[in-house]
């Protein structure tokens, strides 16, 4: 790991000021960034820890019923604190990595990182959530821009994710057996106005919405509704864990299971 300056501000304003310095990078739970620094794949001049800023952590329910999750809320805290209001999101959080990873890793870090196999991006996209930063709000549909790419500007800090809560929802993850990340994961969310389906782990473009399945499920919310559909393997990831065809097939199977689980 190369050396860097380390700051642990107590307020968001201080963090924003520090992030405007040359080659500054935010530190959430460090569960992705610390291994990356060890491999020297990142070499920031300054790390700005966000974990001592009280206003960035915690779960609350907004007046319109949406679930507001502070960016530095850990996976373990979301598993507990979102359980009553948005059980599918809580279940997703409680199944990320292992207990020690869940005690440090944060939703803001996961969303900002946009790993193509990460779990939260599927929940954020399927819920039609809003990503709030210090100075603007970004709709999930505009946020995820491909593998490890997001709409965030240099130095921009995610402060909160606001989830509209669906009538029914479920996340089904087929675990890659070594890393336990999603080989393919599908989040299905049924709202009064229609169904949204987001697939993670499968595509070279990162998380994506499967619009054909959304239309079929909006007309008939049952696993049978998608039995005639198929996803093209063209843009799917192929690696030693699975071929593009396998992932395309798995995405359909996991969509069906998520619909069944959502009930």
């Amino acid at each position, binding site marked *: 790991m190369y050396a860097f300056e380390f700051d642990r501000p107590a307020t968001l304003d201080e963090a924003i000021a520090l992030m405007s310095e040359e080659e500054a990078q935010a530190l959430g739970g*460090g569960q992705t960034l610390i291994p990356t620094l060890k491999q020297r794949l990142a070499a920031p001049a300054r790390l700005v*820890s966000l974990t001592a800023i009280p206003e960035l952590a915690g779960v609350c329910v907004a007046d319109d019923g949406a679930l507001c999750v502070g960016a530095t809320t850990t996976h373990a805290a979301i598993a507990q604190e979102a359980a009553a209001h948005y059980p599918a999101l809580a279940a997703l959080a409680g199944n990320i990595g*292992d207990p020690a990873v869940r005690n440090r890793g944060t939703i803001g870090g996961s969303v900002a990182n946009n790993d193509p196999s990460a779990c939260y991006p599927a929940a954020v996209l399927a819920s039609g959530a809003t990503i709030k930063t210090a100075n603007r709000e970004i709709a999930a549909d505009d946020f995820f821009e491909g593998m490890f790419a997001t709409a965030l500007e240099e130095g921009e800090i995610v402060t909160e994710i606001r989830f509209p809560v669906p009538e029914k929802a479920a996340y089904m993850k087929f675990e890659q057996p070594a890393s336990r990340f999603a080989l393919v994961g599908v989040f299905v969310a049924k709202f009064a106005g229609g169904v949204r389906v987001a697939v993670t782990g499968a595509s070279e473009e990162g998380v994506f919405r499967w619009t054909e399945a959304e239309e079929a499920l909006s007309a008939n919310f049952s696993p049978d509704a998608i039995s005639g559909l198929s996803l093209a393997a063209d843009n799917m990831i192929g690696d030693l864990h699975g071929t593009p065809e396998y992932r395309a097939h798995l995405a359909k199977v996991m969509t069906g299971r998520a619909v069944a689980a959502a009930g």
Partner: protein
Amino acid sequence: MAKVSMSVNGKPVTGEVEGRTLLVQFLREGLGLTGTHVGCDTSQCGACVVHVDGRAVKACAIFAAEAEGAEVTTIEGMADADGSLSTIQQAFQDHHGLQCGFCTPGMVMSAAALLAENPKPSEAEVRDYLEGNLCRCTGYHNIVKAIMAASGQDVAIAAE
């Protein structure tokens, strides 16, 4: 270099660290508490698990400066006040829950965190909780038995 202060196994400690100093380095090299092991240094094995404010974390994946003001517990803080083995540690010995012992500090710290949260876990819950703790020797069954025993439950059910 910056100064950090925290409580380790109930004692206040301070030290000089760089931003990049990991908590595990501070514990082992700064404080000489070498019971916390580094098995992988890539967040996979769990040999380095310690408690920070009561929660299990991988000490190879947190900077020492992030533990400023925290209460840290390591394997050195697990024995009973009179120096005898704690219930969990004794159960590992009784049920042959270790062979080379390299993973054991992390296993004991994870087991303690589990039992604090869930005093009577099922066997499946024990196995699930140990997802991030790898052992190359025992095949896990005796570790699961030890944790079941430490929770005061029947160990016969732990898979043979």
